Every structure is written in structure tokens, then in C-alpha cells.
């Protein structure tokens, strides 16, 4: 993609089996598209089953930005990871509701702690594949993700370009 290195990217790291994505830059179209790709690649590479996106410093979420987050949730679900948005401030929540962004579309948690607790049954290495409710994961998913469930190292997006 043209100009792939000219705009800022969001750094992300793996912690306790979750991919943590703290958004600390302004969300332009290209940044969001790149973020979407980066998250999907990282989930694919590391085999994490949980993604936590921190939007606590995001100023405004309009329907376009919300759509990208909804897409990220759906796409990561397709490759076996659940995404949770954290840090939606009360004032932003009011605007989002009026905008018509349904709670059903995006999983949310108040804090990082809550999000990790929510994801714990899904990402915990001890659970492995057997304890995960069948409806949450297909057999193909299970076989695929079981192979690299151990990957816990801190990883950043732009490693060795």
C-alpha cells in the first residue's frame, strides 16, 4: 500500500495471552486501515485469543470509526479471537448511543482489568482447547490455535522492516 511508512502506527503487545492495543494517536482513515491489518496479522502470527483495544484517549468516535471497530471485532472473531474495547468515557458513551452504535456490535469493558478477567476463560493456557465451550470455537479453530498457544513474548508491530 502506498505511503505505508509515512503515517503513524499503533504499537501493540501481547500480555497474558491477550493482544493489547493502546490507541494513542489520531485516527485517520489510513491509520485505521493499517490498524485493522496489523491487529489481524498479529492475531494470526501469535495465536492470541483475546484482543483488547484501549480507546481512552480517542477524542471522537463517529459512525465511520465505529464501523472500523465493529469490523475489527468481526474479523478477529473469524480467526478465533475475541475483541474487547476498553476506556470508553461516559461522555463518549452518550454520543455513541445517540449515534446508534449498538452494544451488541462491540464488546466493551470498563478497565483493562475487567477486560482481562472477561477474556481469561478464553485465553488462559490451562484451559487449552477442551474447556472452551463448543459454541465459542470450531474444531478447525481449536486444532489450529492449539499449535501456538504458548506465544507470550512482547511483540511490536514494526519489527524489522
Amino acid at each position, binding site marked *: 500500500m502506498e505511503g505505508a511508512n509515512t503515517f503513524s502506527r499503533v504499537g501493540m503487545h501481547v500480555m497474558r495471552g491477550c493482544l493489547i492495543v493502546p490507541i494513542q494517536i489520531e485516527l485517520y482513515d489510513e491509520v485505521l486501515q493499517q490498524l485493522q491489518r496489523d491487529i489481524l496479522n498479529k492475531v494470526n502470527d501469535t495465536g492470541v485469543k483475546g484482543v483488547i483495544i484501549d480507546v481512552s484517549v480517542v477524542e471522537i468516535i*463517529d459512525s465511520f470509526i465505529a464501523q472500523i471497530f465493529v469490523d475489527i471485532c468481526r474479523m478477529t472473531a473469524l480467526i478465533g479471537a475475541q475483541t474487547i474495547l476498553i476506556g470508553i468515557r461516559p461522555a463518549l458513551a452518550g454520543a455513541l448511543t445517540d449515534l446508534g452504535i449498538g452494544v451488541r456490535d462491540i464488546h466493551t469493558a470498563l478497565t483493562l482489568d475487567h477486560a482481562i478477567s472477561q477474556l481469561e476463560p478464553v485465553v488462559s493456557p490451562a484451559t487449552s482447547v477442551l474447556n472452551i465451550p463448543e459454541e465459542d470455537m470450531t474444531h478447525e479453530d481449536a486444532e489450529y490455535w492449539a499449535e501456538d498457544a504458548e506465544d507470550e513474548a512482547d511483540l511490536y508491530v514494526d519489527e524489522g522492516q
Partner: protein
Amino acid sequence: MGGPDFKMKKNEHRVEVLAEADVAKAIYAAQSLSQEMGFEKTARFMIATAVSELARNIFVYAGAGEVAVQAVEVDGKWGFEVIAEDAGPGIKDIALALKEGYSTGGTLGLGLPGVKRLMDEFYIDPERQIGTMIVARKWL
């Protein structure tokens, strides 16, 4: 509901929307003005989100246009007003564009009904032959 019928306006700020970065400029103008006018935090977020939506619509659907924000007074009441104007393809069916879930731009399609809910008054100029003009207001 009519079009712009204000008796007084002040602190007008116009932002030309030609690129995506201009959406951020429009948001900033909306945030500064609504804060200056004394809107409380939730209302400021609603206004900024509505302006973001309108500015982004211009960028996505029309390519170029202008967003103007200003304080208006009608019958002793002050309100925040945003006027979004472009010379793009226009809205063929206004009623349809205001229906929940309708979109031609591949988005959630909640843009305009969302703006209508976020603001107190919402008006699309139905007479306009070229492009689109949308006026939305929120009262203090």
C-alpha cells in the same frame, strides 16, 4: 422546521473540507466553540460527534465542501449551529437517507439519523439542486 432563521449569529468558523485531516479541523472548531458557549461535557461530545459525521460525509460522498460552525440566537435562546455544504452528488431520497441502517457508502449507515438524534434540530435543504446542505443545531 425551517432553514436558517436566526436573528443573530457570532463566532462563525468555517472549515473547508478537502482532505481527511480537515475532519479533525472541523471537530476542533466544534469543540472550541461549544466549550466557549458553555455546553456541558456530554453535549460537547454530541456536538463534536455530529460535526465529525457531517464533515466526514462531505469527505466520503462529495470529496469537497465546507463546514461552518457558529453560535446563533433565536428568541433569546443561544444554540450551536453547524452548516455542512457541498456540491457533490446530493441526497436523492432524503427520507431514505434518514432511515435507520441505510447507507450507500459502505458504512454503518447511521450517519444522518445519528446526527439528527445527537442534535436538537436537523434540516436538509430539499430544494437544493446541486450538492447537499445540512443544518443542525443544539440549544444551550
